[in-house]
Structures are given as structure tokens and as C-alpha cells.
């Protein structure tokens, strides 16, 4: 039987599905029976959702315009190359 401290050590591998089945089984058995560790794992999962949400993916209009220009230019070049083949 795993100790609670080991659950804290292994939660990352558990949520990332990087455990062999024996390990996973032992982990699940523990959290099934231990409300405290189940609470920890729930909080941990909440943390991961929050981290993913907090990524900053804002783009400046200037960058978008620059990317549009470069991509159009490249598409024209690629088109010409394809035509000349």
C-alpha cells in the first residue's frame, strides 16, 4: 500500500498517464480509499486547468499584419515554383 507522501510524489506521473499499469492500479487503489489524497489529486488537476488557461496568446495587430504579408509572399513564390515545374 502506497503512503500518502508517495501519492504526492507520484501525482504528476499519474495525471500525465506516465505510469505502468501496476503503478496506476496501486495509485488508484490508494486514492479510492483515502479522501485526503483524493482531495490533493483534485486540487492538483484544478491547478493544471488554471495553468493551461493562463497562457498568454495575445497577438498585436502589427504582428498579424506582418505574418499575413510574409505568408502571402511565400504562397506566391510557392505557386510560381509549382507552375514552373
Amino acid at each position, binding site marked *: 500500500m502506497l503512503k500518502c507522501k508517495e501519492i504526492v510524489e507520484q501525482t504528476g506521473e499519474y495525471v500525465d498517464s506516465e505510469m505502468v499499469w501496476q503503478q496506476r492500479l496501486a495509485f488508484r487503489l490508494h486514492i479510492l480509499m483515502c479522501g485526503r489524497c483524493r482531495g490533493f489529486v483534485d*486540487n492538483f488537476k484544478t491547478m493544471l*486547468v488554471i495553468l*493551461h488557461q493562463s497562457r498568454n496568446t495575445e497577438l498585436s495587430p502589427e504582428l498579424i499584419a506582418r505574418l499575413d504579408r510574409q505568408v502571402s509572399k511565400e504562397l506566391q513564390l*510557392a505557386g510560381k515554383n509549382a507552375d514552373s515545374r
Partner: protein
Amino acid sequence: MDSLNNDADLLQALLRGDDSAYRRAVRQFSGGMLATARVLVDASTAEDVVQETWVAVVDVIGQFEQRCALQTWLNTITANRAKSRLRRSWREVNLDGLEIESGFAQRFDGAGSWKQPPVAWNSVSPDMVLQGEELRQCLSIHVASLPENLRTVLLMRDLLQLESGQICNILDISASNFRVLLHRARQRIYLMMENFEETGEC
């Protein structure tokens, strides 16, 4: 009807070299690509890397095998390009294994059972992050203050959701080293969030 309403339609249009599809893809995916590049290089270099990546994508889009989402594929190419701009190399950190952070260690008794168990989070929730600035700000301060190697791994895995194997390739670190770095970074962020839950303060 919008014919580009999902990744599959968009991909077909990109493969045809449709200019308007690229304009749409630039808007949809560049944010994630920029965030990926910024993990590794400064802000201005990151913009250059995203531009370079799009130019390259026009030529290599046919190689996308759809084994992952288009965003993930684009983020991976971006990360590899950003890495080539990175002068400093990554060193393997000293491995102490997946031991727990001191903030956690004191919460267990000698037998490894909880002495001070976790409480369920109420105020720390995804909704709270969307509604309020405080938790988001606190999180960004704590992420920024992580040692560089912990921060990079955490950003790549948990914010950008790159695959572990890809991160190891990009950073040239072993799988075990990756796990230790990620483990430490996550524990520190967990303790920060727990403190926020208990005190309402950063």
C-alpha cells in the same frame, strides 16, 4: 456557411495554398506559437521565429501527418526553431529524484501519512481565474520567479501542453530530468495556489 469551421477543413484549404485559409490560421494559431517561442527566446526574437515558422509551414504543410492537433504541430516546429536561436545550452540538473518540496515534507508524519491534509479549493478555480485578476497575477509572479529550468519545463508542458518527449528533444534533457524539473515546478505552484486559497493573498 463557413467552410473552414474545423481543423480538417482548414487543413485542406491550407494544403491547397488558399491565402484566406492562411490568414485565418495565422490568427488562430500564432498566439500559441508566439507563447511557445517566448518560453525560449526574448519577445522580439520570438516574433521573428513565428514569422520564420509560417514561411516554412507553407512549404512543409504537406508533411503534417495529423498525429496531433495542428496547433501542437505548429508549436513544436516553433519551439525547435526558437531553440536553434538559443545560444546557451541546457545543463542537466543534479538529480535528487522525485523528492517532495520542503513546504510539503513538513505536512507528513514519520510514517508518510498526512499530518496537515489538503483542503478542497473553493476560491482557487478556473472560473476565478477567468473572472478575477488577482489569482492570475499571483500565478504569473510565481511562475516568473521559478528558476529558469523549472519555469521553461512548466510553461512548455502545462501552459502550452507540448508532449513530454518533444520537450525532452527540444531542451536536450533526459526523460528523468524532465520529470524532476516538472515535479518541482508543479509542487511550488501548488503551494502558491494553496496559500492563495487559505489567505486570499499572493
